[in-house]
């Protein structure tokens, strides 16, 4: 019998530490947002009104639901219910993809209205509105990248579940991927009201 070093709690704690650094990464962007909001309160409100609240709300529902499905997937694998685990992972990845499709339509619409970083139309609206949209594209873009990475990670782990490499006895990989996915949800929980809902 081979001797195996295994520390599930340590692996999870390592993931949490990594997620803390992710929070610090995003918090830098939120601080920039806060400082700019203090400087240009009226322009930020005006710019926020140009965002489509329906896209934002629907994407919030999509992400919250995907967070539910991946949390359920953990319970399923702990109970050794492999098929439900795979279905729940699939739904999570599908919802992540739906989020990105919505984002595609949302950004296409905004770009077609001349709202994108560096556009002349935006420059004419002044510094406050330009700052808002630059931060919006950067923060939401970085968040979107996290959605793509998290979704890919879950898809890969789902394949490992199907192959029997991730099991009820050993599911840390799935659990850590789920933690990452929840972080994506957490960032959106703050991003949505701050960018879409300023009055």
């Amino acid at each position, binding site marked *: 019998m081979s001797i195996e070093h*295994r*520390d*599930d*709690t340590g692996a*999870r*704690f390592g993931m*949490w*530490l990594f997620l*803390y650094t992710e*929070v*610090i990464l995003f*918090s830098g962007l939120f*601080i920039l947002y*806060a*400082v700019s*909001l*203090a400087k240009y309160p009226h322009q930020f409100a005006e710019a926020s009104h140009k965002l489509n*609240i329906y896209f934002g*709300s629907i994407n*919030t*529902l999509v992400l*919250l*639901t995907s*967070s*539910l499905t991946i*949390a*359920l997937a*953990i*319970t399923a694998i*702990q*109970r050794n219910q492999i098929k439900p685990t795979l279905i729940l992972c699939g739904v999570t990845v599908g919802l992540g993809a739906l989020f990105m499709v919505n984002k595609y339509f949302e950004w296409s619409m905004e770009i077609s209205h001349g709202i994108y970083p560096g556009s002349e139309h935006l420059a004419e609206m002044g510094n406050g509105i330009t700052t808002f949209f630059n931060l919006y594209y950067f923060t939401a873009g970085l968040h979107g990248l996290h959605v793509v990475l998290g979704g890919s990670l879950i898809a890969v782990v789902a394949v490992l579940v199907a192959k029997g490499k991730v099991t009820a006895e050993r599911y840390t990989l799935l*659990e850590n991927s*789920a*933690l990452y996915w*929840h972080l994506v*949800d*957490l960032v959106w*929980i*703050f991003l*949505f*009201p*701050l960018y879409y*809902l*300023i*009055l």
Partner: protein
Amino acid sequence: MEEHKHEPVPYRTFIKVWIALLALTVVTVVVSRIHFGAANIWIALGIASVKSSLVIFIFMHLRQESRLFKIGLLILLVILAIFIGLTFTDILYR
């Protein structure tokens, strides 16, 4: 040392949390359409913090983790408070 195994969280618990999250989202959107002046942003942040706590403690199983994980979160929050607080002492009193 024997690996400490978590009890599976019942499906029902997660579904209840999800319903609470959806309800809080509706509250955020509705409240954001009413003028409270500067309070609007604090209300939005307050609701977002409640939602985050639900996600962190239940969806992310922090409730079941050892004290080390919770201290880690606390340290993160203190670091963020220093980071944000010190930035604003600069911004506001320039």
